[in-house]
C-alpha cells in the first residue's frame, strides 16, 4: 500500500474510533452504560481501547514512512 493510501486509511480509522464514543453513549438502550469489571463500557472504550488503538495506528503509520 502506498504511503498516501496508508495515511488515508489511518485517518479514516481514527475518525471511526472517534465517532464511536458518542454513538456508544447516545445510542438507544444506552449500551455504553453496561458495566464490565466495575467500569462502564463507554469509559473502557473512550478511556482505554480507543486511545490505545488510535495511538498505535498513528505510530505505525508515522514510523513506517514520511510523505
Amino acid at each position: 500500500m502506498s504511503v498516501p493510501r496508508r495515511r488515508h486509511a489511518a485517518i479514516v480509522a481514527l475518525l471511526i474510533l472517534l465517532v464511536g464514543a458518542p454513538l456508544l453513549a447516545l445510542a438507544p438502550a444506552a449500551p455504553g452504560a453496561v458495566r464490565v469489571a466495575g467500569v462502564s463500557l463507554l469509559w473502557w472504550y473512550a478511556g482505554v481501547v480507543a486511545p490505545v488503538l488510535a495511538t498505535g495506528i498513528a505510530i505505525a503509520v508515522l514510523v513506517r514512512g514520511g510523505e
Partner: protein
Amino acid sequence: MTPVSAAAVWLHPVLLTVVALRVAAGDADAPWLALGALIAPLVALLVPARRSVAANPVAVVAAALAVTLVLAADFVIVADAATLLGGAPWHGVVPAAALALLVSRLSPSRRLVGPALAVGAAALALPLAIVAGTMGAAPWTAWSHGGLRATLTFPEGSGWVTHGERFARPARLTFTEGQRVTTLTPGTYRVVERDATPPTVREWRLTGGESLTLRPGDELAVEAGARLRFEAGRRMPGAPVSGVAWADAPARGPALLPAAFGALVTLVGGALALVPGTRRRGTLAAAGPLVLMAAVAAAVGWGVYAAAAAPDLALAGSPLAPLLQLPPRALGAATGGAVATLALGAVLVLLVAATLALRGRLAAATPRPEFWAAAILLAVALALWSADPWRLLVLGLGLAAAVWTPSRLASGRASAVVGASVGAAVFVALAGLPLVAPGPAAWLGALVRYPALLALPLGLAAARAPVDGASARRARVRSNAR
C-alpha cells in the same frame, strides 16, 4: 517541526485541565471530549503537508484571532490559580503574559518546546502517580469506587466544610437539600426562592461569618472569589445526585448528538489548523503520539481520582481544582501541598511549551512580530473579561477550524481565499447570533455553541472547488492523466 513540538501546539493547560474537571464533575460529554483531545491531533499529524496561509489575508487574521482566543483560555486557567490561592485574577494573568512575551523572545526558544513539553507532561503525571499510589487504587478501581457512591455529600474532611473554599468564577448553586451556608468573604449574595410563582429574589449583603439558610429548590448566586463553608453530610449543590448519576450522566441521550458532533468537529478542525503534519519517520516519530496519549491519560486520571476521593472539588468551578486540591486531600496538608505545587508547576511548564509552539504557528502564517505582541495583549484583556475558559477555547479552535483549515486544505490560492471567507462568514453569523437574537431556537443550539459544525464543511466545500485558472488547469491535467 518535530512530532513532540507539533504535540506541544495542542497540549494546552486549558484543554487538559478542562478534561480533568469534566471527568471529575461527571459531565455527559466528558468521554468523547477526552477521546477527541487525543484523536484530533493524531489525525492532524497524519494529514500530509498543507498549504501555507501566508498569502491569504482572511486566514492570517483568523489565525491571529484564533491564537489569541486559545492563549486567553490558557490565561484564564492561570487566573483561576491566583483566585484559588486567594489573589486577584490579574495576579496570575499578568505574570503569565509577561512570561509568554519573555520566553518567546529568547533566541533558542524553538529548541525549548520539545524538552518543556516532556518535562511538563512528566510533571503532570508524577503527582497523579503519587496520589494513586497513596490511595492504593488502579484507575479502573477508583472509577468503580466513584460510580458506586450512594449519594454525593460533603465529607467531614472537605475543605468546603472545615475552613471554606473559594469559587474561581461566578456560580449559581441549586440546592436539592436544605442546608446552612456560611459566608467567609463579605459581598452580595442573591438567593432565588422557587417555592412560589413567580420566584422570589432576595439580595443579602453579608459580612464574613454570617450564614444563609437555604431550602430545597433555592438557587444561590455566588461571585468569583467568594469563600463559603457548607455543612458536612449534606448533598453538594449542582453535583450528580449519586455515583451512578456521575458514571452515567442522566443528560446523556440522543438529543445530545448534535452537540457531541459539534465538539468533535471543532476539535478535529482546530487540530488540522494548529497541529502541523510531520515529515519525520523512524522511531522518533512515535514520540508525538506517545506524549499526546500520556498527557490526555493523565488528565483523565486526575478527573477519575478526584471523583473517587473528593467529588466536592468540582464545586469550585475551576478546571485547576482537581490538580490543586486533590493532593492535600489525599496526602495531607504538608505532603499534599508540595505535590500540588508540582502539579501547578507542570501547568506552567505546559503553558510555556504551548505558548512557544503557538508563536511558531503564528509566525508561519505571518512573521510580523507585532501580531504576536498584539495577540498576547488582547488575550490578557479577554482573560480578565471572560470567565469561561472552555468557551474561549471552543471559539479559538472553532475559528481556526472554520477559516484557517479550509485555507490550508484548499485546491488553489483563490480557492483558499474563498473557502476562508465562506468559513469566516458562517462562523461569525452563528457565533454572533445570540447577540442579535437572544434565545435562538433549540435546534440551533448546537450550531451556536459549536459554529464550526456548519462553518467548517461549508468553508471546505468552497475551498476545494476549483475557482481559478491554475486549479482548472490542474483538474484538466488530472483528468487527462486518468
